[in-house]
């Protein structure tokens, strides 16, 4: 009986974590960039590039993983009769927060999910990101405790909730039937990808399981600090352990803070970028992966957030805000990557915007409980 309770409480979330980890390993083996089997921020950035929203030639590909995650969530929600149209919770603020969550993630070079995958590959530069993410979440919890709220969402027609899943079907159609309308990288991370069918199936599996289990990187840590509940965090840990074991078995585990794939050594800015992403994720009520899942379930506010993140990715690359990976020059010199002045200013602006949004949504003149 005790075992059954434990399985009921932790079974779905652990299974989801293991499946995400295995899917990340499979996708990397099938062609995705190293330590980037899954990355919501990077893949949305690639989609922005494929649609011509930015012109960074190395990061343009219409990633079927994102399409799969949204549609997997939609299918799981439809089967369990949980697809509900909802919207109206400060969509403009969510859009703005989504923009800065993406800017922060691209400064670090990965969303919270890729942060875990990088750690599972032995990438010690991701530790700064993890600490920053934790710090951002604690700041978010501080304001949650003081009554921060973007206000409630209201039931809307299912058509409103179907917009993002519909857009994903359209993107899949473009990828398969009209690829000439899209941009594809010929070199760099955007040129490295698994066969679209494998990516789509992996995304569908992860989307469906994440909808059932409510996997969320930010929510897991929020629940630990706010509620002393470890269920959601166990999914986060399951991904980490699965990817670590898989990389060790495949010989892809390289414990080092140097020469890690698509990572940089500006640790302070990795910390601050993920702090921005963590704080923003708490204000939004979920990490970038969770926003895709909620949008798939019919949440129009999360759909707006996802669109904000895609715009944030375009802004990051059009204005040179994103991090550059460390590299080795032709003469063998190790070149530290990271961000420039524009990226630093954008992170500072991001903190200012999140603070302004937070202060404007604390209990006071305009109650939002």
């Amino acid at each position, binding site marked *: 009986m005790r075992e059954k*309770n434990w399985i009921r409480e932790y079974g779905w979330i652990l299974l989801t974590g293991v499946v995400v980890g295995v899917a990340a390993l499979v996708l990397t083996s099938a062609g995705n960039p190293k330590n980037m089997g899954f990355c919501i921020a990077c893949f949305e950035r690639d989609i922005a590039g494929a649609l011509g929203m930015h012109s960074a030639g190395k990061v343009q590909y219409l990633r079927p993983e994102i399409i799969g995650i949204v549609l997997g969530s939609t299918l799981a929600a439809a089967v*369990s009769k949980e697809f509900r149209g909802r919207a109206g919770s400060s969509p403009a603020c969510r859009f703005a927060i989504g923009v800065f969550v993406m800017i922060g993630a691209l400064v670090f070079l990965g969303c919270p999910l890729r942060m875990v995958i990088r750690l599972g590959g032995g990438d010690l530069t991701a530790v700064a990101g993890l600490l920053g993410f934790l710090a951002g979440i604690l700041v978010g919890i501080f304001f*949650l405790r003081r*009554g*921060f*709220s973007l206000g409630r969402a209201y039931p809307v027609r299912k058509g409103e909730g179907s917009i993002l899943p519909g857009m994903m079907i359209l993107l899949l159609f473009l990828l398969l039937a009209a690829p000439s309308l899209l941009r594809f990288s010929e070199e760099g991370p955007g040129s490295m990808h698994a066969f679209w069918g494998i990516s789509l199936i992996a995304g569908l599996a992860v989307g469906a399981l994440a909808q059932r289990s409510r996997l969320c990187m930010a*929510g897991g840590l929020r629940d630990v600090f706010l509620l002393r509940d470890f269920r959601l965090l166990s999914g986060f840990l399951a991904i980490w352990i699965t990817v670590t074991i898989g990389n060790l078995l495949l010989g892809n585990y390289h414990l080092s803070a140097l020469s890690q794939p698509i990572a940089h050594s500006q640790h302070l800015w990795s910390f601050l970028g993920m702090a921005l992403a963590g704080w923003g994720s708490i204000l939004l*009520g979920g990490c970038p992966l969770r926003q895709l899942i909620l949008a798939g379930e019919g949440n129009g506010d999360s759909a707006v957030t996802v669109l904000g993140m895609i715009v944030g990715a375009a802004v990051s690359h059009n204005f040179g805000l994103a991090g550059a990976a460390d590299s080795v020059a032709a003469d063998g010199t190790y070149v530290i990557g990271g961000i420039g002045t524009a990226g630093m200013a954008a992170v500072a602006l991001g903190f200012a915007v999140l603070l302004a949004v937070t202060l404007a949504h604390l209990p006071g003149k305009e109650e939002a*409980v």
Partner: protein
Amino acid sequence: MRKKQPRLVVAFHTTAGAIATERLCQACGMEGRLIPVPRIITSDCGIAWSAPPNLRELLEGKLQQAGIETAGLYDLLL
């Protein structure tokens, strides 16, 4: 793992509603604690208030008085 017990679970539309309820109950000396909203109630990953079932009427009254909107009250084994 402890044995499951009947609990009154209050779900909210916002996290702020749950936090406000915690404050209210602490101020009134009413037993209860914040929990992740049970999966059986919703696919949302919000926060709920868990209280002894015998406090239902008292809690409903206090929440109404304080103007805290709920998304439902549920009797569950937790």
